[in-house]
């Protein structure tokens, strides 16, 4: 009985949504950094710690709304998966992506 991660394909959908949101939000923040502060590439791609936390909070909020809108949260709750557990998955993926971005840019 796996109670740590949501079952597939629900887990896959959450991971893909987080990836898309992360890319879109990063692109928007990058555009903002270049336009408003004139930060050059590739430094503009790396947000500050505060902006990263804000970005993760926005992703968690959007994922929560999406899970509710698509009736996934009730189904996953009936399988014993709490939203708190899903938040851990979302935050872990965001941290991996942030670490990957920083490693790639150097």
């Amino acid at each position, binding site marked *: 009985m*796996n109670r740590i991660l949501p079952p597939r394909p*629900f887990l896959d959908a959450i991971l893909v949504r987080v990836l898309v949101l992360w890319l879109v939000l990063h692109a928007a923040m990058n555009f903002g950094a270049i336009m408003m502060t004139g930060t050059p590439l590739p430094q503009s791609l790396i947000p500050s710690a505060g902006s990263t936390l804000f970005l993760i909070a926005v992703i968690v909020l959007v994922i929560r709304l999406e899970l509710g809108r698509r*009736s996934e949260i*009730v*189904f996953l*709750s*009936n399988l*014993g998966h709490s939203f708190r557990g899903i938040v851990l998955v979302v935050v872990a993926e965001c941290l991996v992506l942030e670490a990957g971005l920083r490693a790639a840019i150097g």
Partner: protein
Amino acid sequence: MGNPESAYALRAEGIGKSFGRVEVLKSASMWGESGKVTTLLGRNGAGKTTLLKIAAGVLRPDYGVISLFGDVRENQSLPRLARSGLMFVPQTQLVSPAYRVRDHLRALAATFGSEGITEAISEMRIEALLDQTVRSLSGGERMRVSLALALARAPKVLIVDEPLVRLSPHNQEDVGNSLRTLAEKGAAVITSGHDARVLFKISDAIIWCVAGTTHHLGTPTDALAHSQFRREYLGEEG
């Protein structure tokens, strides 16, 4: 820890809940017994759905106690209750429109094991629906899929909010029979609705939800002998 000696599988007692200034429930109670179907009847806005959501851990009560097999905890949540054997089918829907029926069954099997899934598919006659997305199903088909998931899960307590709404009389009979089957397999089934004809046939106990509180009327026969219930809910004269 749960108390195996507890007579009731699920108890919600002295429940109160307000939304803003609107007091929806005031000291309402309900309980479900293993192997029996308990039905909440009441007019729209009487608080049936709120009471079921509180019993399922979806909403938090302002006051009152929820216990599952004698295990009383503050701040019950649906995931925690689900791990102890409760399943909640909301009025909106249990299944997600974006996924295939098969995906839901696979997810259930990955969590609780695949035992009973083939039997549930055949019992609810959803073989032809397995590769369809839930979005493409009718209300009756979605309810059949939800009940197939419940049959496969074999919950100790099943809460189903208004399962007969928007169903044809034939589908109502089918869904009613499925709830009865689940109870006969040992589950405590708690449901609600307005379709007195079907619900009286499948129920062992009737709870009348009125003005935010509850009246336990006993068996359907007892309920039909209750003159105030007949007059105010069923609309019978005299």
